[in-house]
């Protein structure tokens, strides 16, 4: 691999810099650094255009000119969440939290036989999973999309091994068939399984749905798993609410039951319920939906 690949937007150099920042950056200089690098990453054409096209779908009557500045806000929030995550991993410094839907959250905590947490690429989902497993004492199995760059993936795995929590197992969804059995076993042991349900990686099963009136492929794994393990799905979103402050929003659980002859009909209702939650949360928190590619094939690449 060429040495310069590490400097590409998804390259490992930026993760190493984020770690360096978490260890060396004086806190009173953080806003300056964030403002600068958010502007710098606006030069990443593919990422910027991806965010702007998604914004055009989320806000149908918006202007491209305004969406350019909205894209800056997305990069700004991404930078902060990445830093907060890195700071927690390296220095165990946690942000403030506010819980919305606390009743659902408490129900999730007390689910006797395991449950599925379905989340999106918003806020610091990584940090939330780590904290959840540390604070609640419940074992969690988190499935996340692998990094596109192999060196970045290696860096993430090394950091996970070095700084991860005892109660949290992180798996990358590269081989869906192998992982499905592990997840089923984890649920049967009474563990919580956290999966991101807004992005599809190559090789995993999908289900067609609509998001902001555009066709989209949603990972079908979490819904099939809920059906097989007979456990509820809790939509849970981690939203950055300010500097070192996050909102953990837990929604009403989605119950997937086998009631009809065709399995897909049962899954369709559950997927529709999920995308409805997703739409509501993204509409309010578009500035931290970290989707740097067009989410639908109908949106120009």
């Amino acid at each position, binding site marked *: 691999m060429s040495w310069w690949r590490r400097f590409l937007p998804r390259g490992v150099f930026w993760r190493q810099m984020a770690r360096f920042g978490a*260890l060396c950056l*004086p*806190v009173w*200089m953080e*806003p300056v650094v964030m403002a600068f*690098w958010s502007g710098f990453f606006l030069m990443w054409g593919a990422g910027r255009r991806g965010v702007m096209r998604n914004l055009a779908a989320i806000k149908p009557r918006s202007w491209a000119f305004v969406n350019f500045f909205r894209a800056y806000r997305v990069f700004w929030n991404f930078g902060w969440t990445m830093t907060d995550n890195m700071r927690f991993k390296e220095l165990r*410094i*946690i942000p403030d939290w*506010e819980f919305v839907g*606390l009743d659902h959250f408490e129900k999730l905590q007390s689910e006797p036989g395991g449950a599925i947490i379905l989340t999106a690429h918003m806020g610091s989902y990584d940090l939330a999973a780590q904290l959840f497993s540390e604070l609640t004492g419940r074992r969690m199995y988190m499935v996340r999309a692998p990094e596109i760059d192999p060196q970045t993936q290696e860096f993430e795995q090394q950091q996970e091994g070095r700084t991860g929590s005892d109660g949290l197992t992180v798996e990358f969804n590269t081989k869906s068939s192998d992982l499905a059995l592990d997840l089923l076993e984890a649920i049967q042991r009474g563990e919580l399984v956290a999966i991101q349900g807004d992005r599809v990686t190559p090789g995993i099963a999908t289900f067609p749905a609509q998001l902001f009136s555009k066709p989209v492929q949603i990972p079908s794994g979490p819904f099939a798993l809920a059906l097989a393990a007979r456990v509820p799905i809790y939509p849970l979103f981690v939203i950055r609410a300010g500097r070192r402050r996050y909102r953990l929003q837990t929604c009403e659980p989605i119950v997937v039951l086998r009631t009809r002859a065709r399995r897909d009909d049962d899954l369709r209702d559950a997927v529709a319920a999920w995308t409805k939650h997703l739409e509501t949360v993204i509409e309010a928190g578009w500035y931290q939906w970290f989707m740097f590619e067009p989410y639908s094939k109908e949106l120009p690449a």
Partner: protein
Amino acid sequence: MRAVRGRADTRWAPSRFNFAIFRLAALVVASRAVVEHRRGEVLVIDRNQNAAESYAVSIWVVASLTAYAASLLAAPLGWIAAAIVALPAVLVLCQAAIVAGGLFVLPAIRHDHTRLNSVLLMTSLVAVSAWIASTTLWSRYVGMLFIAIVALNAIAAVPARLLRARMAAADRARGVTD
């Protein structure tokens, strides 16, 4: 790490602030604040947790440095060009200074270098401000103000230290426990 659950008024706990001026201000506010229960609120006790403090210091530093840069660049570039170039130049310089400072302190401590780098950078800023204040540039007043604020914070550190017991009591009143 310590955290207080269900108390929104913990945001005024002095131990959530870093600089002496802000800690004293928090003590004043905390002594008047009423208990505010809020279900689902978890506030962390860390000296760098206050957003207003962090943004205020950050903006103050950048504004001062921009004034210095604009006044220094005005002679070779002219006023308009200097005004345009000053802010981007300062932002780039800040990144370079942070990285240089970080690399300098990196071998000194094994893990958390933020505090040492913070002292190093603030000392450099005071030195630059002192030099600017000694010139005849218009930004010397900004430099003087910078040094005055740093001096004020140093002076505020004395009562902040003397009032440690009261600060601890204010923390406890806001739900912070040892």
